[in-house]
């Protein structure tokens, strides 16, 4: 739990933290409209979004009525329960080896760093890993990934800058098959979801994988920056339309952002959070734990 302790510590660092405001709200006081108004503001200020906040409040009021809750304190536990329910509604994908994981997302969310951490994580589980540097667009992206590959002690397949990412993926899949590695991790260039040609390029990449790696499970993960606001919802929505997203990797949770938008995503788009990242160290990636996540937000 070292990692979650870190998250909690980080969240505590600011008195703007949602936990601070919630504790104030849940201590004493009466359950009136003002209470719910204030609660609504707090949830919105955690990037949870209007639609999901509305659902939470509706369900909360229902639960409060049903259980004859009269004080503010027990409402907190009810709220936690509801949040957890939303997060647990979507199932986390089950791995079987060999398999391929592709990371996609908008620019600057931490895809390359996440690949490095994932590679290390699988290596610790004694799996063999190949990395494909399919971000051929950003300056020195492959160099950055090479450093991570060296740190994790895994193989990397890369081409020159500006090369066709499809060609990198093709070569990587061939190498992954011929060397019978357990896992192929594919890093892709950051792309804004409203750039149609770049989304087409991503589709092409997955088509190549499906064609060249028949029968091998492919997991498409979208990487989200925890500081992102409501725009994360259209991000997941559009990437999901393009390549069918199997899960979310939530990065940069060591800041003061709470990543509340994943509640909105889980509620509206039914995509589960699979991993969370909390720093720049190679160990700083953990499986998502809804219990701990809600604790992190609320306590």
């Amino acid at each position, binding site marked *: 739990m070292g990692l979650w302790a870190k998250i909690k510590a*980080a969240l505590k*660092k*600011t008195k*703007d933290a949602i936990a601070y405001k919630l504790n104030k709200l849940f201590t004493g006081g009466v359950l009136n409209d003002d209470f719910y108004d204030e609660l609504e*503001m707090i949830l*919105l*200020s*955690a*990037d949870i*979004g*209007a*639609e999901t906040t509305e659902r939470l409040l509706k369900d909360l009021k229902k639960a409060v009525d049903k259980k004859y809750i009269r004080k503010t304190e027990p409402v907190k536990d009810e709220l936690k329960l509801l949040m957890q329910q939303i997060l647990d509604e979507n199932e986390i994908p089950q791995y079987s080896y060999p398999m391929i994981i592709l990371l996609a997302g*908008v*620019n*600057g*969310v*931490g895809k390359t760093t996440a690949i490095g951490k994932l590679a290390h994580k699988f290596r610790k589980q004694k799996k063999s890993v190949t990395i494909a540097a399919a971000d051929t*667009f*950003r*300056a*020195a*992206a492959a*160099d*950055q990934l*090479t*450093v*991570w590959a060296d740190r994790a002690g895994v193989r990397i397949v890369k081409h020159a*800058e500006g090369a066709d990412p499809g060609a990198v993926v093709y070569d990587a899949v061939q190498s992954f098959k011929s060397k019978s590695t357990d896992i192929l991790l594919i890093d892709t260039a950051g792309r*804004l*979801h*409203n*750039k*149609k*040609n770049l989304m087409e390029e991503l589709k092409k990449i997955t088509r190549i994988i499906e064609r060249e790696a028949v029968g091998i499970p492919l997991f498409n993960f979208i990487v989200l*920056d925890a*500081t*992102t*606001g*409501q*725009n*994360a*919802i*259209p991000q997941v*929505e559009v990437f999901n339309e393009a390549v069918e997203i199997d899960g979310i990797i939530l990065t*940069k949770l*060591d*800041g*003061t*952002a*709470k990543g*509340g*938008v994943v509640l909105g995503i889980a509620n*509206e788009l039914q995509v589960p959070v699979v991993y969370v990242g909390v720093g*720049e160290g190679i160990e700083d990636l953990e499986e998502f734990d809804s219990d701990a996540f809600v604790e992190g937000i609320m306590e």
Partner: protein
Amino acid sequence: MGLFSSLGEKLKHIFSKMGNRGKLTELEIKNAMREIRVALLEADVNFTVVKDFIAKVSEKAVGQEILQSLTPSQQVIKIVNDELTALMGGAAAKLEVSSKPPTVIMMCGLQGAGKTTMCGKLSRYLIKQGKKPMMAACDIYRPAAINQLKVVGRAVNTEVFEKGTQNPVKTAKEAIEYAKSRNYDTVIIDTAGRLHINDELMKELENIKKEVQPTEILLTVDAMTGQDAVAVATEFDKRLNVTGVVLTKLDGDTRGGAALSIRAVTGKPIKFCGIGEKPDEFEQFHPDRMASRILGMGDVLTLIERAQSAVSEEEMEKMEKRLREAKFTLDDFLVQFESLGKMGDLTELMGMIPGMQGNKNMKNVEVDEARIARFKAIIKSMTAKEREHPDIIKASRRKRIAAGSGTTIQEVNQLLKQYEQTKGMVKSMKGGKGGMKMPVMNTKQKTKYRYR
């Protein structure tokens, strides 16, 4: 996403409910303000900023001026817009220049905000202004960050000063000395991305600042940032007293509420924005335009400006003359495609047109740039006579044109059909019938955005 996809659409919806009933009650205003509050929060404007904003707008709206007004909903929109613009700051802010060169510009921000890319864009911008900039690589933490800056530097013809993983404070200091010796008039310092709560790394920035006394300290912020933008900006400003903000990734479809929040809590101007991945995709920040973009009124001003720089005066006059004569040949059609291309990314341009942004019906309409390129190829494969008199293009000519342009006969047909439609529109426009719902622009511009 709910029913609406932009703040502007939401506000429009609220006010359309109000209608034009002459007078507004206080209750109606209160309801509208509640909706505006939620809409702003959904647009990622920080909740404390929203609170203040609502208080201010309510105060103005509930006053007599609105109750006595003939079109109250219009006036509420105006008040909201005015307040939003006021909150964004007045005129566009400029880059400060030091009286004692070199001018030092220090870039800072969270990881992944886009500092390194922005350094390149800034350099390209300064070179265009006749300056002689240099860049200093002070990100010693992220793997290959120095390499990235060097690649960016090569792309914009700017020298990059680097000392490997040496202490960045020392590197920054040496960079200034080096710049002086080489007569560079501006030094752009690229620093590592860091969390605002990482005390050690924030101290490093304070030390760089102390050592090189930057003229500009620009906080780079991702336009997609949520509520946390305020915490980040407040902390960076507290520790470094930043001189301005640079907003990146504004070419996404984010509503950009973070811009409003940062401006409101720090009072620091947003100076530039990044609108793409290429070094040229960079603009001066215009507060009034951003306010109207958030409101969904489109970014008409930017659009007009780009149209003007993309189309020469001469071409414009020629086109106008053709329009007056109601002559519209395939050559004119080609000119229009070309000027569209010069204006930049079409999908992005569409977002600037009022009503397009966040319009539900427009959600699936995409500008197919490849298709436009094929259209251009088709016209270019025609003879001069064919372009002037498209009527003569019959089956065998179509076949030849398709072969010559590497397209299909179907595509040639499509182009000719589109041309006929456009020609029809041009004619009806000349006849004063109009019928096109376009932004308020003069006829010169009107002709440019019809082809989608």
